[in-house]
């Protein structure tokens, strides 16, 4: 209780600090010497750090308020005091990560953040799957940290000191090879934390295992510290000078993460795992913006580079808000029903109207539907990808629109996924006794969700407040301010870089939607008068409707599973026990289906893949299909012809 109250207070202070940092003209710095060599406890609050402090504090504030109600779930099962202490430590370590100004200090708080989050993940350590999730997370995050250490050592070698100032302006400039190495090390190291494909595998285990308010912090802001660090390394330490393929690599990783993240999310029926996969997707969208920015930077198109980076950061903040909101919503469902399986929810909108509305706002935001915040930032990412026709290389001119098409596919699939998540959980009849007995969650939890929901709506409707803030973050890296070039009509509309190319006014769209809904109501009254509606049960083909007749989450995504079966590699098992009297009627049916965890299987079981795989692989070639053999002959022929030329 006290711990979370203090955390909420700290959150408020953090919000003030973040806003102050964004508005301050010069970075605020503080440095404490230490007795260890190379280590100084230096902190520096520049606009980039301040933006992340703001996000961490806002989500931290909501999570602390939420925890006041939510931790009652753990009475008698875990020590609330320890949980509260860890929670506070976790918040502190995240804040320190983004304001650290010394490489050594950064690594220490980074490690602290990882360890504290590990302890929080294993809160329910009596469950075997939680222990497994924790171990998996611990190993992955340390592999990532190893790469980060390597990246920092490269900078240290050139700079002679661990201070970030020395990283920025090293004594002897890094060679091209070393810069590339630092780029790759940072990408792998921070990418592991951010959850880029294929380093994302720990996310769907660790995030659902943690208590929900911790999941909100982890998914909402902890993985964003990696985005912070990537921007810090690429645009600050490496000075924003890259060959074109760096941006291209980031862009491709972004596109693949976005698409695969949402594809796997669709197949998840554990609500929290589903949300965890969506974090992979949104990290991908953020990287699409940043990658586009990096490509533009290479070609000296500074305005567009700033736009790409700004779009990425806007989405970072938005994702922090709506993902935290959704995780808190999922936590409320867990609190009310004691299950995470969506197939056991149903009809909860009537039982939990507030949670339902907040979850709906989060769903609409994450599905990037106008006029919410998710839509505005995704729209900006689209614009920065579309401006690719200014790039002189034909390959990139084609790849960026293709990335936009993948983003379009991603966002519709996300829409489908949240139609499923909301529709199956909150609508129709309750599917289990858990759902039938569900009650609305305590007021503190509702306040926390309401706070984030309001922030989500405001972030979408008021770009004139958000864009100038983000512009202050981006301006030092791009070398120019684009605030005036993005905002139009006194800030009521967005018109990135050039008014002719595109414009958007979320406020106008919101007003139009409201006005035209009113028009619909007017038409109803004008043409039909106020006819009273009649209530009657849904037609169930002649028998009474039961929850077993409803569409399930599995059934809902079946067409998608089938269309993209190449990716999912689904295995379906159907066992039927027939009646003895007639083989047309089944006594019992058992349906099972699994999708292949491709990455775990092909990337993370290398030992197994090596020993068993050698024999297996030889067998795979010999598929027994004539078409396959013909294809081999054809491919060989082409290869030989290529050699001949």
């Amino acid at each position, binding site marked *: 209780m006290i711990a979370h109250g203090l955390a909420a207070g700290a959150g408020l202070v953090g919000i003030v600090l973040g806003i102050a940092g964004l508005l301050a003209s010069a970075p605020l710095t503080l440095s404490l010497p230490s007795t260890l060599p190379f280590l100084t406890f230096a902190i520096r609050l520049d606009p980039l750090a301040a933006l992340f402090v703001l996000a961490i504090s806002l989500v931290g504030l909501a999570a602390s308020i939420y925890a006041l109600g939510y931790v009652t779930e753990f009475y008698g099962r875990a020590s609330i005091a320890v949980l509260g202490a860890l929670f506070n430590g976790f918040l502190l370590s995240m804040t320190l990560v983004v304001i650290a100004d010394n490489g050594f200090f950064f690594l220490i708080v980074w490690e602290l953040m990882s360890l504290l989050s590990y302890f929080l993940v294993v809160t329910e350590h009596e469950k075997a799957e939680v222990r497994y999730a924790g171990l998996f997370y611990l190993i992955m995050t340390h592999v990532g940290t190893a790469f980060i250490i390597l990246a920092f050592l490269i900078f240290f070698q050139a700079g002679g000191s661990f201070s970030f100032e020395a990283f920025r302006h090293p004594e002897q400039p890094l060679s091209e090879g070393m810069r590339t190495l630092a780029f790759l090390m940072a990408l792998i190291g921070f990418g592991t934390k951010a959850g880029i494909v294929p380093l994302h595998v720990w996310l769907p285990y660790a995030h659902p295992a943690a208590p929900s308010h911790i999941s909100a912090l982890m998914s909402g802001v902890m993985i964003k510290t990696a985005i912070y660090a990537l921007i810090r390394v690429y645009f600050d330490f490496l000075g924003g000078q890259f060959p074109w393929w760096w941006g291209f690599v980031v862009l491709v990783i972004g596109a693949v993460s976005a698409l695969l993240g949402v594809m796997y999310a669709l197949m998840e029926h554990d609500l929290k795992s589903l949300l965890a996969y969506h974090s992979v997707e949104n990290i991908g969208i953020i990287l699409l913006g940043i990658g586009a920015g990096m490509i533009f930077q290479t070609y000296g198109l500074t305005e567009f580079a700033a736009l790409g980076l700004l779009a990425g950061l806007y989405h970072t903040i938005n994702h922090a808000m709506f993902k935290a909101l959704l995780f808190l919503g999922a936590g409320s469902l867990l609190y009310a029903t004691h299950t995470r399986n969506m197939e056991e929810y149903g009809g909860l909108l009537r039982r939990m109207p507030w949670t339902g509305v907040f979850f709906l706002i989060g769903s609409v935001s994450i599905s*990037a539907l106008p006029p919410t915040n998710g839509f505005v930032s995704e729209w900006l990412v689209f614009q920065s990808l579309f401006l690719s026709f200014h790039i002189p290389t034909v390959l990139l001119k084609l790849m960026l629109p293709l990335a936009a098409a993948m983003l379009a596919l991603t966002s*519709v699939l996300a829409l*489908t996924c949240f139609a499923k998540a909301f529709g199956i959980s909150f609508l129709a009849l309750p599917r289990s006794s858990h759902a039938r007995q569900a009650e609305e969650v305590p007021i503190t939890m509702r306040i926390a969700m309401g706070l984030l929901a309001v922030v989500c709506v405001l972030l979408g409707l008021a770009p004139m407040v958000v864009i100038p803030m983000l512009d202050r973050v981006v301006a030092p890296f791009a070398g120019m301010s684009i605030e005036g070039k993005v905002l139009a009509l006194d800030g009521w509309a967005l018109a990135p870089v050039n008014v002719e190319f595109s414009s958007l006014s979320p406020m106008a769209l919101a007003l139009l939607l409201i006005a035209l809904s009113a028009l619909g109501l007017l038409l109803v009254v004008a043409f039909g008068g106020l006819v009273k509606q009649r209530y009657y049960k849904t037609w169930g083909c002649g028998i009474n409707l039961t929850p077993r*007749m409803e569409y399930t989450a599995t059934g809902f995504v079946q067409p998608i599973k089938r269309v993209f079966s190449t990716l999912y590699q689904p295995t379906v098992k159907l066992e039927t026990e027939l009646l003895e009297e007639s083989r047309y009627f089944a006594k019992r049916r058992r349906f099972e289906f699994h999708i292949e965890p491709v990455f775990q299987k092909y990337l993370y079981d290398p030992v197994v893949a090596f020993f068993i795989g050698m024999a297996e692989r030889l067998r795979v070639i010999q598929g027994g299909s004539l078409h396959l053999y013909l294809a081999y002959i054809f491919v060989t022929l082409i290869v030989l012809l290529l050699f001949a030329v």
Partner: protein
Amino acid sequence: MVQAIILVVAQTIVLLAVSPFLVGLIRKVKARLQLRRGASVFQPYADLAKLFRKQPVVSTTTSWIFTATPYIVFASTLTAGLLVPIFVSSTPLNFAGNIIALVYLLALGTFFLMLAGLDAGSAFGGMGSSREAIVASLTEPAMILSIFAIALTKGSTNLSTIVHKTALLEGIATDPSPYLMALAALFIVAIAETGRVPVDNPATHLELTMIHEAMILEYSGRYLALIEWAAGLKLLVFLTLIANVFAPWGIATSLEPAALSIGLAIYLVKVSGLAVLFGVIESMFAKLRLFRVTDLLGVAFILALLGLVFFYVLRG
């Protein structure tokens, strides 16, 4: 300001007034091709009026989502329609959103329809929602790419700017192939998005083959009227997009009364022509199986991509 408001109101009225006519026209064309006399082209107006007066029956299983959805779908489709230039090339709402906003506004309606389909708890609604999801997922990338191919030639993604420039013959490429590819892609997208044969059949009475109709199976009375009207509006929006983006000639480029009335007349002729074409296509093809629709939409995607490649290759 006053002028802008008048234009917006006028456009709203035109959209609302014309959309049932096109639905009726397509039905008429289909009837004539089947050697039936068919109902009058104005039948949909009578249908709407009747539905508005009927008492709606609402399932006891549903939540407020079910009753709110018709209004949201109606409003979002109409908002999307207001972003497209109809009879005058520069719409006052140009600033409010570009073509991506239009795509996402339509997606907003789809999202709520999908929720409403699930809300009544009947398996048919869920089936419709689930199928709508797969069709929508596959059309959107093709739509975005075809839009981009067009946007490139005009240097804008704002519909007014695109239409205005084309109407004034600015930036017309010497080689029309990227255009034609994008047109073909957008045509397929329009068929899929508006739920027409061969993707979906708006006249079907068989629950197991329905997509859009299954989602809205539980609606009746005024709610059904709003959704039907919105479906008509969506059809009109796509026909207008095709007509005015690819052949905006005749559209009023100034606000003179003569130009406006000619623009309106030519617009009506254009969308009616396209509606007849849709009717003919519906009569010529059988509905595809759901899992064959993916091939058709794949073709649309490839066409749009080729349009883009052609644009860059031809430009050198």
